[in-house]
């Protein structure tokens, strides 16, 4: 970091913001103690996944798109699968659908606990990294590692392997687990449920900056269960649409300073918030009563508008994911088939699921042989980019009198509230504050 101070102009440059996935930069311009410009610059090269999906067989999309992210490959697989099933006109129900929720729960547990304990908690406790934090808070870090492990075990069992799983397919799975295999997970999940509850209680003891926004939250909703894999897309500001109407209401825009497209709401180009806080706000009623109670005991209402408290919400979602995994296992009856047939036709299919970081939309146009003619993927971080900028624009004035080093620290923390995955959106995040 270099820090030059002279007259009314100050320039602060930070070369590396750690604990986010991907390469990008943050630019803050401050004039007369007012924030006049905020840019989340993503300079990680475009990855062209949509381009090389074209010409591939529709059945290849789940395996190709799972390579987009090592943290949330299940989400990419699932959104691709739901889009392809939409195109084929089939709906997977019953035990196969339940197994998809179990698979997804594993990813939520693994991804969320990585962020809670290894990436985000050090911000609140004043450590530069989880390694430093582990020296003073070994119990917390070990709790996080234990939870992450059970999430990875679910992903390994359901996906064949935890990174870039290979077992999910259009129509179901290549192989479904035997009940005995699931029961082996059950004992571990019972322990994990205690650890997850402790995580909620522990996260609630952290100190949070007083900052709230009137967010437009967007997530899936089906009225019956906390959303993971299907539902309508709703917001707290009146939006209620089918997944295939997404393009009519949302628009990806290119901004010159970023290699990732920014997604905004039509027609005004407003920013919106996807992820744990959005899911929670729009689906609190779908949480089991004991988890609602745990959330309330942690100080949360039915809606959380303080992005710094997203760590508590994320912890509540870990508890939910563990409970949901247990529910699926306890009710599991092995399906008669591991998948149902999927016959492609010349049409466009739409799919959206709830990745750990938020809504993940896929759209594919197929020809009559099931060859992909066009693909569009809108990851959660692309949708949250403008929201992150907006948070900083509103948050920084509240701490404008603080030293630049503290503004930098808090701003980095504000970015990490979103657990941004820049690789998904297009690796380090540089923060630059320009005071004039």
């Amino acid at each position, binding site marked *: 970091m270099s820090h030059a101070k002279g007259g009314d102009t100050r320039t602060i440059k930070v070369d590396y913001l750690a604990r*986010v996935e991907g390469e990008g930069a943050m630019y803050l311009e401050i004039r007369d103690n007012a924030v006049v410009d905020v840019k989340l610059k993503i300079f990680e090269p475009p990855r062209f996944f949509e381009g090389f999906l074209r010409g591939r067989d529709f059945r290849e999309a789940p395996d190709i798109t799972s390579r987009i992210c090592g943290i949330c490959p299940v989400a990419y697989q699932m959104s691709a699968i739901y889009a392809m099933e939409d195109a084929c006109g089939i709906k997977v129900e019953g035990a196969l659908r339940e197994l998809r929720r179990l698979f997804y729960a594993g990813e939520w547990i693994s991804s969320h606990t990585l962020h809670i304990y290894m990436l985000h908690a050090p911000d609140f406790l004043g450590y530069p990294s989880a*390694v430093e934090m*582990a020296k003073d808070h070994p119990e917390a870090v070990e709790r996080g590692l234990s939870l992450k492990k059970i999430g990875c075990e679910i992903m390994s069992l359901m996906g064949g392997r935890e990174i870039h799983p290979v077992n999910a397919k259009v129509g179901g799975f290549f192989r479904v687990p035997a009940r005995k295999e699931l029961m082996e997970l059950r004992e571990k999940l019972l322990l994990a449920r205690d650890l997850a509850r402790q995580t909620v209680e522990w996260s609630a003891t952290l100190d949070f900056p007083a900052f709230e926004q009137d967010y437009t939250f967007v997530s899936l909703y089906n009225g019956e269960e906390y959303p993971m894999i299907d539902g309508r897309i709703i917001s707290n500001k009146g939006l209620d649409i089918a997944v295939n109407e997404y393009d009519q209401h949302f628009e990806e825009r290119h901004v010159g300073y970023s290699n990732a497209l920014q997604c905004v709401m039509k027609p005004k180009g407003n920013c919106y918030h996807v992820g744990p806080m959005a899911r929670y706000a729009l689906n609190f009623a779908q949480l089991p009563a004991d988890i609602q109670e745990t959330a309330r005991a942690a100080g949360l209402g039915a809606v959380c508008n303080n992005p710094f408290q997203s760590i508590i919400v994320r912890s509540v979602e870990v508890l939910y994911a563990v409970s949901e995994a247990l529910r699926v296992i306890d009710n599991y009856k092995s399906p008669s088939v591991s998948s149902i047939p999927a016959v492609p036709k010349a049409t466009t299919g739409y799919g959206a699921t709830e990745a750990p970081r938020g809504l993940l939309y896929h759209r594919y146009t197929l020809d009559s042989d099931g060859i992909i003619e066009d693909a569009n993927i809108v990851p959660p971080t692309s949708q949250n980019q403008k929201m992150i900028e907006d948070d900083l624009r509103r948050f920084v004035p509240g701490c404008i009198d603080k030293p630049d080093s503290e503004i930098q620290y808090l701003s980095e923390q504000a970015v990490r509230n979103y657990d941004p995955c820049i690789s998904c959106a297009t690796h380090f995040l540089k923060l630059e504050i320009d005071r004039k």
Partner: protein
Amino acid sequence: MTNTNTLIIGIGNRYRSDDAFGCIVAAELAGIASSDVRCIEHDGEPATLMECWEGVDEVILVDAVSSGAQAGKIFRFNLALEKLPEEFNLYSTHAFGVPQAVELARALHKLPANISFIGVEGECFNAGVSLSKTLLKRKHEVVAEILCELRKKGDVHARVISDG
């Protein structure tokens, strides 16, 4: 080393050219050392990596690195005494990879008493299933080096367990 257990962990991705270096070295060592020596392949995910070496007396980590050094350069570190250098931190998901796993284990007093790292600077990390010529050469050297160490300790057989 017949009275202790030894674990060789080849870290990498078999589908990213030179990143497969650790995996290929671990696989080559299969069937050579004693049953006290396990050779596994691992993707480098920290939590499961730490779990792999829990209760193991001696661990050798083998990995390809990308530090900016000349391709083929061999790095050796006694991790019980020293950290992996910062420049090895660049290529991991959420900046949380093998160096962090080692330091986290150290902080949690879960680092094996004997743990070493052999890294070789990679040349090509593009999608692909073949090592570059430079690393192919280094593979023979590193396998020979580890075998030499194991033979000094009396190991003559090994088995491979695929993990990750």
